[in-house]
């Protein structure tokens, strides 16, 4: 790598189902100001900006230009990256490449969404092929639900396994994350009793839609060593966007794109035994069912081992590998920001700045993004500039 890349500041809004206090650009500026504050930098220190969201959620075209009032992008280089649910992680990775290339030193990555401004499910449905798929694909829920039916019949996972994931993430958000959107403690029984919204996914299995923004300051090595006591180093990035037709993702009981993205990121970072090497994980789990069937793709368990790992409690706070101390996507989902929040939360963990949600002594963390057509992004972050 030409330049080592670090994260020196993370900011986010207090996420809500509907934030009428803020016009979109103002929502963005809250996250940006918090990120700058956490990095102890000013807007003048920022060399370039990368921003992303999903166009039809707010129906604003050229958001990189529109957002200048909030992003601080006036007379700065600014670029828009958008890849669906993986937008946030793709924005983070684009900022990573801005710095790694040596072209820019201090770069602001911004993800945001004001989902309350439209019908999110309807807007998402327009991602499916207008001629062969759109009519029968209801938002992001349908394909995820279908995937879990396949996983259950293949590996004997249950709806209760998914409920455990839902309880873990919701309760982490309630207990530890003041920024989270949903902060209600829930029980397995409540999840199981909640109505089906798309069999086998029930209301409490599914992520909400959220108004929120996240901003992260990426910096090259010199800036990092100068300004941050304990920067988070980005050791590996990987992404894999595998398909064009969502139907072809069906029968994917597991998630090959996550496997491929992880392979790429792990190789770059030097991760050999992910379950052991990672101290904490912030995973893009849009439905609790995914929290059961995707961990094997990250190498956190053997094929079909998701249910066992979830039932073991190892992924709870205090367990061997806590997953989603922040409460993750099930508690907070401003879609264009969601993937970036995973990177931000993972960075805060290894910076020792995660406050109530801190996993003690966390040194190596993994963050994922999910979206598009069963697509995945993976980021490996550490308090160490390189792993031994």
């Amino acid at each position, binding site marked *: 790598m030409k330049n080592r890349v670090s994260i020196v500041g993370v900011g986010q809004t207090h996420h809500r189902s509907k934030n009428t206090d803020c016009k979109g650009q103002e929502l963005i500026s809250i996250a940006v100001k918090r990120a700058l504050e956490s990095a102890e930098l000013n807007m003048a220190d920022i060399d370039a900006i990368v921003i992303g969201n999903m166009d039809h959620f707010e129906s604003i075209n050229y958001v990189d230009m529109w957002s200048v009032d909030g992003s601080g992008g006036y007379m700065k280089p600014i670029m828009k990256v958008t890849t669906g649910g993986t937008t946030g992680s793709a924005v983070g990775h684009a900022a990573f490449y801005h710095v790694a290339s040596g072209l820019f030193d201090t770069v602001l990555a911004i993800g945001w969404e004001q989902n309350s401004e439209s019908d999110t499910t309807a807007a998402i449905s327009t991602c499916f092929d*207008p001629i*062969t798929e*759109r009519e*029968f694909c209801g938002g992001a829920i*349908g*394909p995820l639900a*279908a995937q879990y*039916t396949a996983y259950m019949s293949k590996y004997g996972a249950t709806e209760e396994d998914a409920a455990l994931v839902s309880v873990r993430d919701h309760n982490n958000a309630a207990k530890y994350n003041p920024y989270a959107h949903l902060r209600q403690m829930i029980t397995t029984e409540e999840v199981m009793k909640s109505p089906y919204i798309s069999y086998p996914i029930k209301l409490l299995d599914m992520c909400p839609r959220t108004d929120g923004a996240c901003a992260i300051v990426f910096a090259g090595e010199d800036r990092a060593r100068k300004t941050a006591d304990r920067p988070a180093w980005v050791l590996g990035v990987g992404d894999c966007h595998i*398909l064009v037709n969502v139907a072809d993702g069906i*029968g994917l009981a597991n998630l090959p794109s996550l496997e491929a993205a992880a392979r790429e990121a792990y190789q770059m970072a030097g991760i050999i035994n992910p379950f052991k090497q990672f101290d904490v994980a912030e995973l893009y789990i849009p439905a609790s069912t995914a929290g059961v069937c995707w961990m094997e793709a990250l190498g956190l368990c053997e094929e079909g081992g998701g249910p066992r790992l979830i039932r073991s409690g190892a992924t709870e706070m205090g367990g061997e590998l806590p997953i989603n101390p922040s409460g993750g996507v099930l508690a907070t989902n401003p879609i264009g920001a969601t993937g970036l929040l995973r990177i931000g939360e993972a960075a805060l963990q290894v910076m020792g700045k995660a406050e109530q949600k801190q996993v003690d002594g966390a040194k190596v963390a993994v963050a994922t993004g999910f979206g598009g057509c069963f697509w995945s992004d993976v980021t490996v972050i550490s308090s160490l500039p390189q792993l031994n």
Partner: protein
Amino acid sequence: MEGKSMDTGALSVTCTADMPYNYHAGFYYSRFLKELRDNKRIVGVKCFRCGKVYVPPRVVCRDCFVTMEEFVPVSDRGILLAFTVTNFPYTDTTTGGPKQIPYTAAYIRLDGSDSNIVHCLDETDEKRIRAGMRVQAVFSDDRTGDYFHDIDHFTIIPDDSV
């Protein structure tokens, strides 16, 4: 457009964005749509290298990255790989009105195909549907070059021993 005063005293602007698109089906989907419309036939395209058949047809083989040119008919029967009964309200963006629910999205692999399609099933009681069931396409009489309509729906084959 209207400005509406909301409970917090904050104002908002409400507007229906209506963006028409004449989606170009291109050479491969056009062939697919016309075969459906004119011949009640479902066609895919076959990769000369790996032999895989893709439905709906497309120009490039995902695995071999070669141009596919051989259109082949596939069966109107197949296996239900997965399904979901969609029963939450959302806007149908093709009309701006509410989507008709419930409907069952059916992910199907047709006999003779190596890829999957999505359509709907004429059964919305999830207790009566299982992944792995055999299903059959039911065509519309009045076909217009619309895949969602020209195949009216898929139906579960009660006895597939024939």
